[in-house]
């Protein structure tokens, strides 16, 4: 799984989460259900966070692409000195996954669960993968 596929996967996770939560909430509202997922503040807040994160990402990517379009490369240039394009996409996407998984995790295991290390380890793994992919895309090699 390369950087692009990884970014697509995270984005699809965000869209899938929004679709599932949105469908469940709307199902309860439209059918006047007795038990509504919309009454659960955790899911509603998570869905709003993901929506906002995707909007922020869209604005950031548009800005980054505008900068990239206007940039020039001089002969002998190997890599960009700032790596701004990698700082926009992957780290921004991680926040989407965290808000999604944290809500679901707390529903299953509870907020003060002793299995909290599971979620911590998962976040670390996703962040670690994102940084590795960004470095490899930036420098064209694995970190030393």
């Amino acid at each position: 799984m390369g950087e692009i596929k990884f970014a697509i996967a995270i984005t699809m996770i965000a869209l899938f989460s929004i679709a599932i939560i949105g469908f469940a909430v709307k199902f309860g509202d439209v059918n006047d259900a007795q038990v509504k997922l919309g009454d659960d503040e955790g899911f509603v807040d998570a869905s709003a966070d993901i929506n906002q994160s995707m909007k922020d990402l869209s604005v950031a990517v548009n800005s980054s692409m505008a900068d990239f379009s206007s940039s020039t490369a001089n002969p002998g240039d190997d890599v960009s000195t700032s790596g701004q394009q990698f700082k926009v996409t992957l780290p921004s996407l991680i926040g989407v996954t965290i808000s999604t998984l944290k809500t679901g995790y707390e529903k299953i295991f509870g907020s003060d669960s002793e299995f909290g290390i599971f979620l911590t380890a998962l976040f670390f793994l996703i962040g670690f993968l994102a940084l590795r992919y960004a470095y490899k895309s930036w420098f064209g090699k694995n970190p030393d």
Partner: protein
Amino acid sequence: MHIKVGLVKTLIKMALYNIPNMTGGLDNTIQEIAREVPAFPIGILLFVFGVVFLGGITTQKRRSGFYDSPMWSVIASTSTLLVALLFTLVSGIIDLLTLGVVAAVTIFSGVWLYLSKGRGEI
């Protein structure tokens, strides 16, 4: 249960729970069973998930030689979510916590699918 009434030993067969009124419709039947046995709706949801998940991977393995667990997990959890949403239309079958857990499992299945290194299907 055996009850001694005088010198007569009477055998009374008792059900584990009060038998529901089957003439009130399927939703009423499930509702009454859920009131007597609160774990019953959760058991139905687990049954739906297990049938779709295990049936799916078994059939795919037999037909194609491999199985895609994350994909069948998403299909099974989505099916379970749909059944759980139908249970929410009537009060007294499942509560908000159960619905939240089912939704969380569905989202986790999606995370598993999209982060898994499949055979290039997605």
